[in-house]
């Protein structure tokens, strides 16, 4: 059984935020608008965080850290969902069932990485922007929680295709499978099977530069980072 994971090279990342944008377009996440964004309701399944600037002028340092959902192996969000609207698949993805979600938002407060978003409003796609919606991804209604899915729709389609052709998925076709990886101008992101020791993500995750966020919490995130120099 594969376990899907991601590696992001912080040395290569240029903080351009193409990943955040590609994710939005691929997954039908709408913009919040100035008033809603001002009060903290902009939704970025994939978000580029910046660390606090430290150092003495002019030797100032900060890092850009692209942050999708960690798809933790021990997800705190899945534990607390009262109805199982968020659950862990066999292949390690933390997925959502938008039909079950009652919008209690326990998962959002349980996630230490703050990767979950709630639909305070029904998403707005002012005509004719709704024509650009991706037919492979559902549009979520008001009142439910959503988050990065590692582009599960692309993953399942790729798996289906491979199955039809009677073969397994190749590492080369997985590396740039999610929209964020595919777009990254710096080619700083990798996706693949962490259970396959020869896959790109496995090899990179073994690198001495590799680390994960909030490792000490024991969530075992499946997104690994490679340090900046």
């Amino acid at each position: 059984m594969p376990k899907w994971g991601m590696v992001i090279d912080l040395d290569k990342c240029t903080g351009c935020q193409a990943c955040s944008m590609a994710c939005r377009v691929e997954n039908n996440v709408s913009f919040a608008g100035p008033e809603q964004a001002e009060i903290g309701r902009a939704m970025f399944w994939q978000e580029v965080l910046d660390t606090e600037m430290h150092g003495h002028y002019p030797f100032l340092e900060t890092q850009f850290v692209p942050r999708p959902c960690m798809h933790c192996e021990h997800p705190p969000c899945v534990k607390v969902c009262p109805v199982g609207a968020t659950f862990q698949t066999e292949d390690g993805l933390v997925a959502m069932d938008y039909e079950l979600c009652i919008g209690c938002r326990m998962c959002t407060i349980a996630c230490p990485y703050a990767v979950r978003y709630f639909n305070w409003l029904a998403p707005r796609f002012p005509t004719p922007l709704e024509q650009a919606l991706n037919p492979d991804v559902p549009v979520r209604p008001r009142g439910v929680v959503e988050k990065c899915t590692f582009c599960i729709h692309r993953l399942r389609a790729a798996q289906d295709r491979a199955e039809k052709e009677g073969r397994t998925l190749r590492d080369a076709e997985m590396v740039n499978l999610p929209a964020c990886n595919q777009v990254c101008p710096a080619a700083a992101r990798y996706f693949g099977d962490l259970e396959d020791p020869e896959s790109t993500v496995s090899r990179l995750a073994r690198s001495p530069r590799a680390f994960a966020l909030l490792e000490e919490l024991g969530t075992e995130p499946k997104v690994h980072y490679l340090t900046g120099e």
Partner: protein
Amino acid sequence: MRHISRRTFLKLAAVSATAAALYESSGSILHALNLIDRATPPDDAVWVPSVCQLCPAECGLRVRVVGGLAVKIEGNLLNPNNQGRTCPKGQVGLQLLYNPDRLQAPLKRVGQRGEGRWQAISWNEAIEAVAARLRDVRLAGTAERTAFLYDRPPGLLGETIARFCRAMGTPNAIDARPDVRSQALFLTQGWDSQPGYDLDRTRYLLSFNFALLESAQPTVRLLRAYSFIRRGRPGDRGRIVQIEPRLSVTGIKADEWVPIRPGTEGALALGLAWVILRERLYDREFVDEHCHGFEEWSKAVLEDYSPAYVAALTSVPEETIKRLAREFAGMSPAVAVGGEAIDQQTNGLASQMAIHSLNALVGSIDVPGGVVMQRPPPLTPWPDVFMDDVTTQGLSQPRLDGPEHYRLARSAPHRLPEAIASGDLYPLEALLLYRANPLHDAPDPEAWRSALDKVPLIVSFDPFIEETSAYADYILPDHTFLERWIAAPLQPSLGYPVLAVGQPVVEPLYDTRAFGDVLIQLARQVGGGPGVSFPWSDYVKVLRFRVGGLVDSSRGSIRAATADEFWRELAARGVWFDSPYVFAGGEEGNPEAWEAVLTTPSGKFEFTPQAFDQREISATPPYYESPRYAGTEGEYPFHMQLYTLMAQATGPGAANLPHLHELYGLHVKRTWGNWVEINPETAHELGIANRDAVWVESPVGKIRLPARLYEGTQAETVNIPAGLGHTLGGQWAAGIGANPEHLVDRRRVDELSGLVARQGVRVKVYKAEVGD
């Protein structure tokens, strides 16, 4: 030539071979990567190649179309410019195509100009109305009284506009955004285009205000190059030094940020040159064989630009100057790059020459990892324009913008308002606008408004109503880029020629027309000479005609027996390129290529350009002067620096893309608007807290912005992102942010290049009162 050890070179060569292999024929890319159809699920979707127009980089795209609707944009894997990737702007092209505020039909003004009342008319009516007026101007024997103002026209449209103007008999094809680096390259090497940089093989990038990771072109190529410099060559992590007045994203990701007084980058370059010359670190072979004027120039530099003196000019410490010089000369290949912001000071051209001279000093001209000459694709040249009497007469007239007032300018758009308003040269009868919005983008909107009032006919071809097109009499709206054909010769900084081609991805949404087609229809409707000059019935035929040159060359990534077959392949792949680049220098270089690389009168790199003598420009090496700022230090204590964020697209409708507004400033937490960055200690002295509303006032205007206390700001500089502050342009453009262009004083100009010193403005900053 530098003496690189065999070992080092082999290491470089092995890596560059891999890199080159990746860039080589598209066939092997398809085979090796095999990702086109694998990365996304196949379904009833169709993938159509296009070319992004949200910034001048013109990345190759593939657009996923399902049921006739465009639903996702990806990069074109075959295009070496962006190698299958896009920046965040590219992703949002769908929001431009399906934008609620797009114009849906040709419009004719009703009521007064600027009232905002329009009547939709048919295309026949629109074209005839405009053509009739243009015809009248010609028939009166005053063909020159038409002007075409354009701003970063995509693909071959710039050349098409130039041809249109020539055919019409007007010299006034005016580029609203002239370029200075091509002037620097012209003077030193004889090449009239922007230099390219072989960054993938660079080991030391000395960046002078070059926005590598923000707005420098070509966007995605540079982001990839950065990534490659860091991790693409295992064990050989290149070094990047960012010399810049503010700590930008590039500065953050660089190995070192060197704060510098704005406008003094050229002096710093000369200070580095001083050390390189004094310590004899320069590439003697290159200097001896391929340089002209070295003695004169180096003598002048050694006399005047000692590190101590330069330190005082630039505020860069003396030790840093010496260290950077030694690093630059010691690590090879090293390249010095000057950014666009340097152009925009009164000493812009001289500064760029000084910076480029550093490359010559260390022998980084046309070697792997150094400067490359960007070869254009060998398109079929335009046939001569038909010259009848009217055309000949018109073309003999002087240009309205009077670029000859500056030594090397080809375009001086900032002089237009006065020229038009006064009518001293001749009155302007018709002004055509393509993607140009001077009322927003240029300084002194009042002068522009007075000028526009004087012009009897104003026509815009933009698909959105923005500040300037609101003054038009007719609007003939263009398609968005996803609805039309584009052929774009690229300057991807790879050296070898690349032509990106895009086709309509969806049926046009509205009753708009491709600008290229409209130009042709106008020319033919005007009739006479202009009609003859445009024998092609539509723009695609123009493109196919010009692409013929590629077919004939029998070179590059597409070979075909017939022109039809070639065009089909080209349209399907979305790109043609002819790699690899053949360097003139370096161990594997072809010395015969020097002739093409150095096309100055002397056939050498000219430290002291002979073009100056040829044009009777008296200038003393090394040509650098201190910058002249607008505003005195006493009254206006801060330098204002304007910059462009990665999330800032260009062109009509670019400010009306809500996704980009929501990204906007990553290094300061601010979206849906811009801000002014102030050094925290300075802000404290002024009693300004983070997020306070402040006034930023220059000698010619003032704007109100929220302050952001940002540590990466020099004490005497304030930095403002430019591009927002629209009053029109759509529901997500109007009212968002403030426009700093109106603080620029257009009387401060680089006398050599003719460019307004947009970065040379001094301002004062003070807290806004509650009632303001």
